């Protein structure tokens, strides 16, 4: 992209495809990324747990292992070692690159079983159990309310109620039919 044209107008035509581009460059574009160069540990100095030849500069805030600049993983204000990060001991919602949306599953189960009705017997109680088990667990970093769980519980309870009424009705009809004869 022609930078001079970009600096003047804020827009520039792509030199390859001709499409109109708008670009906002920021200061980070001018700064070279810092490279971690661990210093060699001298005799008597604390060394990194994974690199015995490198000088330790910090310790993991969970397991206490000494870490060189190469091994220290900064997550917000915390400094952790790669194995603690990999073990999932730290704030799951912050580190996990993905989460399963149990509230969406709980909502879909009773609604989808209305179409595939033979599964209603299993789906409605399953949705209730899932909603109860997952109610207090974090949903997702961006979902704040639990309306899907609420709707899932209400729909499941209605379905279970209707199923129970149907069973009672059938039993009553069978009993009445039997006593009339």
């Amino acid at each position, binding site marked *: *992209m022609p*930078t*001079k044209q*970009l*600096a003047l107008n804020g827009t520039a035509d*792509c030199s*390859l*495809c*001709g*499409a*109109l*581009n*708008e*670009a*906002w*460059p*920021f*200061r*980070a*574009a*001018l700064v070279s*990324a810092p490279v971690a160069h661990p210093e060699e540990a001298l005799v008597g100095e604390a060394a990194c747990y994974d690199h015995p030849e490198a000088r330790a500069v910090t310790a993991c805030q969970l397991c206490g292992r000494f870490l060189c600049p190469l091994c220290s993983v900064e*997550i*917000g204000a915390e400094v952790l070692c790669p194995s603690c990060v990999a073990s999932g001991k730290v*704030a*799951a*919602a*912050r580190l*996990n*690159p*993905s*989460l*399963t*949306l149990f509230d*969406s*599953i709980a909502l*879909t189960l009773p609604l989808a079983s209305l179409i595939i009705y033979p599964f209603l017997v299993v789906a409605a109680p399953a949705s209730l159990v899932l909603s109860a088990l997952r109610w207090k667990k*974090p949903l*997702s*970093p*961006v979902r704040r309310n639990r309306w899907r769980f609420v709707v899932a519980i209400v729909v499941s309870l209605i379905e279970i109620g209707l199923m129970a009424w149907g069973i009672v009705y059938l039993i009553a009809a069978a009993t009445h039919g039997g006593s009339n004869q």
Partner: protein
Amino acid sequence: MTASERVRYQRLPGRRRGVIRGSSVWLGPDHLLLVQSWRFREEYKRFHLGDIQAIAIASAPRFHISTRSLGIGVLWLIGYAASGRLGSLQEPIVWTVAAALVATWAYLCASCSCVCRIYTAVSCDELPSIYRTRTARKFMRRVESHIVAAQGALEGDWVEAIDDKTIGPPEVTPVEQPAPGVRDAGMAKRRSGRLSAIFVGTMFLDAALSYLEKTHATTAVMRIGYAVMAIEVGLSVALLIEHYRGRLRAGMVKLVIASLLVTGITWYTPQLIASFSAIQAASEVRAGRPAGNTSVFRTRADAVIADTDIGAHVLWGVMGIAILTRRQMPLQGGAGTGIV
């Protein structure tokens, strides 16, 4: 709940709501959070405000069918189904509305759409939630001040300084690997282009034959129709193989999947309705009632399906031409996509 989980996010302009996929971007205290959802799963990617080197918006056609547009389509379909009861006067109005809706959607997709990419020193990622130019500008107005606050403003002669640098991950020269049995990669590309063009042609041919079948249903027309449909499915398979080999334009694969879906629906639905009608008619006859109602419903449903088939094929054909005629976008994210 840990402190990090209680991070409050503000939703930023732009949201992609698809049938299966969705996407949104959120603003955290020190980062942007890209959320991509697949119905029952969400994936997150964080971009620290201090690491963002640039955000670029490139004008590009984006033929995205959102759940909102699908909802409008379903409303129209209900209106169309109801127009049969209201009388023939309503039908031109319904079709005019349909044409206006499709034209608006096509205009928005072709002229008011964009691709928004975010660059850091190690990555170049597309923000799928931002696909309309107006939304992209709104998004930039919200985000720019936060990034500048985190990094400081560009000062002095940044144009000269930036000229020496590459924004985004370092350039990696892709190694062209021709497919087995194909010596020349250019030849393979041309072949996939030819296949795409034939496929787009069959879309129009299918629409024309479906129209003929509707108006002059003869055995010959129906046989040609079946043959064209078989060719269309064969071409779809061939194009999916080309996509697997990485030689197909991005939009074309979506078109192939959409056409296969429509073909499947228009092929199986009449058969299902016919079976349902036959069962219904049999039960009516058994009960000693005339079986007239089911055949009326079947005729109406067949007409709706035929019209949907024609409309969808014309639409896919037009979209196919748009995809074939538009210039190839070289940036596809990942490494080697520096903008300066």
